[in-house]
């Protein structure tokens, strides 16, 4: 049995027919072909699948597609204004070598943006490390991810994003 679902993803209206059990991440990856959002675990621990739903970061492996009915979803594909103009968080990740294999990166970036906003653009290292509790990275040892987020916070503030 399929259910119709409609939502806004990265500013575009999308719809599809899904099974009741279809996860939001499956809808994004398999129905919409937006494979930037990744799946790294099956217990909602790794955070590779983090997207923004109505402005809040959520793990899209832990939300049914039908629960996002009518919502505004932003994924990693929807962050940059253009190929030349990345979001300040994406820019900071590149400048600080905060990614290696790139697999955890989409979720890291989405979590990090939400983190910076929730802390009103003011973060210290201990806060960033604590806030990254829901995102695993096996490559970077977190050192440069923490640096990138600390660098991105003032850049986001001055860019007004």
């Amino acid at each position, binding site marked *: 049995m399929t259910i119709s679902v409609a939502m806004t993803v990265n500013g575009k209206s999308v719809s599809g027919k899904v099974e009741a059990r279809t996860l939001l991440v499956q809808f994004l990856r398999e129905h919409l072909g937006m494979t930037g959002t*990744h799946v790294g675990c*099956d*217990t909602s621990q790794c955070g590779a699948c983090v997207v923004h739903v109505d402005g809040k970061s959520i793990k899209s492996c832990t939300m049914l597609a039908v629960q996002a009915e009518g919502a505004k979803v932003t994924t990693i594909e929807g962050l940059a204004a253009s190929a030349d103009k990345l979001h300040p968080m994406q820019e900071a*990740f590149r400048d600080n070598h905060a990614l290696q*294999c790139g697999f955890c990166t989409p979720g890291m970036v989405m979590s990090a943006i939400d983190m910076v906003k929730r802390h009103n653009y003011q973060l210290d290292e201990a806060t960033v490390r604590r806030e990254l509790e829901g995102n*695993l990275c096996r490559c970077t040892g977190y050192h440069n991810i*923490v640096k990138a987020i600390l660098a991105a916070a003032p850049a986001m503030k001055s860019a007004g994003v």
Partner: protein
Amino acid sequence: MTAETGIGARVKRKEDQRFLTGTGRYVDDLPLARATYAYFLRSPHAHAKIKSIDVSAAKAMPGVVDIFTGKDIADAKVGGLICGWVVKDKHGEPHKAPPHPVMALDTVRYVGDTVAMIVANTHDEAKDAAEAIKVDYDVKPANVDLARALDKGAPEVHAAEAPGNLIYDWEIGVKADVDAAFAKAAHVTKIDIVNNRLIPNAMEPRAAAAEYDKGTGNYTLWSTSQNPHVLRLILSAFVLGIPEHKLRVIAPDVGGGFGSKIFCYNEETMVTWAASRVGRPIKWTAERSESFMTDAHGRDHVTHAELALDKDGKFLALKVETIANMGAYLSTFSTAVPTYLYATLLAGQYTTPVIYANVKAALTHTAPVDAYRGAGRPEATFVIESIVSKAAKELKMDTADLRRKNFIPKEAFPYQTPVALQYDSGNYPPIIDEAIKIADYKGFEGRRAEAKSRGKLRGIGFSSYIEACGLAPSQVIGQLGGGVGQWESAQLKFNPTGNVQILTGAHSHGQSHETTFAQLISDKLGVPFENIEVVHGDTATTPFGMGSYGSRSLAVGGSAIMKAADKIIAKGRRIAAHLMEADVADIEFENGTFKVKGTDKNVPLAQAVFAAYVPHNYPLHELEPGMDENAFYDPANFVYPAGTQICEVEIDPDTGVVEVVNHTAVDDFGNIINPMIVEGQVHGGIVQGVGQALLENAVYDKETGQLVSGSYMDYTMPRADDVPSFKLGYKVTPCPHNPLGVKGCGEAGAIAAPAAVMNAVHDALAPLGVTHVPMPATPLSVWQTIQGAQRKAAE
């Protein structure tokens, strides 16, 4: 132009744009028309006979396309998976080689062993159908406890082919010489250690997708592989029998490997095999639970070691007895890890004149164990650096001084160790001095006292590691039983418009080859960085190569690129000589331009390239057109990175929680191409080492063989708040035998860190009389150790 993008520059990565914008292409991201999806039914038992498998109900489930079991594989005469390294035991006999069927036929041997493959229109339908397969198991006792795996009466994993679970009993060194040295020792330090079993956990789970083209008979396999050419070779020559030229293996963007994606696994084998039978593409991506159960695990040694010292603290001899876990089947390079990648490293950075090591490899009813970041070298470093630190404590010597006293002196290189390796270069004292400076070792006692005033126990630990990497001279590997060559390939393919593709046989799954390799060519040939593209991971487009593991990509693959670049320059000189009507001997190449010595006449490389593709004014009678050069590089020796890490911890005695408060690493990686990338490799390696020391442990229930730590809920991955930021430093002794003077940096962090952390833990707890804490030093085990020490003190 090239100074900003050449050797030594902190160049931002080419690969980041796609990874940061969600446009990377990992195996699971592939859009394959008419794809089916595979799901594997796995054994819930560690050891059982399969009495029967009934797939009839499952076959009738919605969306099911086909179901295959071990019998189908046996009927099709598919070969078993291979172990590619023949280790000869102490009697010169090759190791025991039990069969490794692609799917279990009548016996399952670990939780996760593959029982059936379900192919359906969707992943969910395949998974639903798996639940409808009825397997009647006769459960047998399991052999899970490594320390007792070789005991008489232990349940046998492969009774016929490997009686008593022994794969080999191997040794290196002369035992009599070591015994004689021990007889003269003023002091002997002994340790018993367990090197805990780890699960690699690359963030991208393993995945495979395969397609069969009926018209051409060609197969394409997309796999999360670190070495697609080797995977194709194994599948072709040993397992599936598909001729190499009819099988294309593509490893696109791969999300981390750490060794676990070197090996040939049964899922990719099955997906390829079944693609022609199903007549549609098949995709499979592991769920994380499957990765935990079936990725080859790492480490897992039980070791007793003894170090003999004279009255001044000079090392006289080392002897080591190790039991190494192989798991239930021999994975691709499993046999080499606890022998040639472990025992040959037991000299460490020291002049220990005689060393004897005995290694027994044991089968157990657990997942196969194979190379994991460092592969054998972290285990060796942990033995040496634990015993040296313990000896310093016993002799009441400064731990750094004892190391310095025994370092191989700079003048002694090349240095022949008593365990086969010849270290090519190194200079260890300046490394430890630099680490001591950065870590403010002198100020430590003050910090310890300050911590004590807050009720915390502070400790400091050293780890001075050596590793042999950049695998390695093919002939040496062959003599030691390795089944493959260990060179690397490169092709430099210039296009008529002057831009260039570097095709490499190495593979990047996070290591940044697209940037580092481009820097080499930008530097050497003066080609603008943005005009260079690195191509890797596709057997159809890249020259045969050995892939990436063992910190080899730059030392071996980069050297191949430099050789190819030399050929480009040599050909370009002849073209330029023709164009400028000069003698070839008078042509110089500098900053991307050919010049006639002593004149201002010049031809830029791009012009020579264009002339080679449009050879209207070209010496065709003596020179072929085109600018496309191949090179293969087989190294003369391993490379030997070395360094010292210093870790400082604080322990809360009330909770047993260990906090890493400072961690310093000073490394000698030879020349460095991109410091930003090298630092990233060290950071990541250290955290994997800290993970092993404090957090990670693959635990099987000793009775049932169930994997208890089978998810991120139970297996503690290091998180951002488990570690501090790191302090790094470098010393450089260039590698004397490769054209770049480079060593390798991929594994160093993980090799050195466990001993540094554990030595710090021991140092912190020493005032309580504690001499041993098992690894990982979890809050529970540290708290129990403290309680035990306090009870003992009260008695």
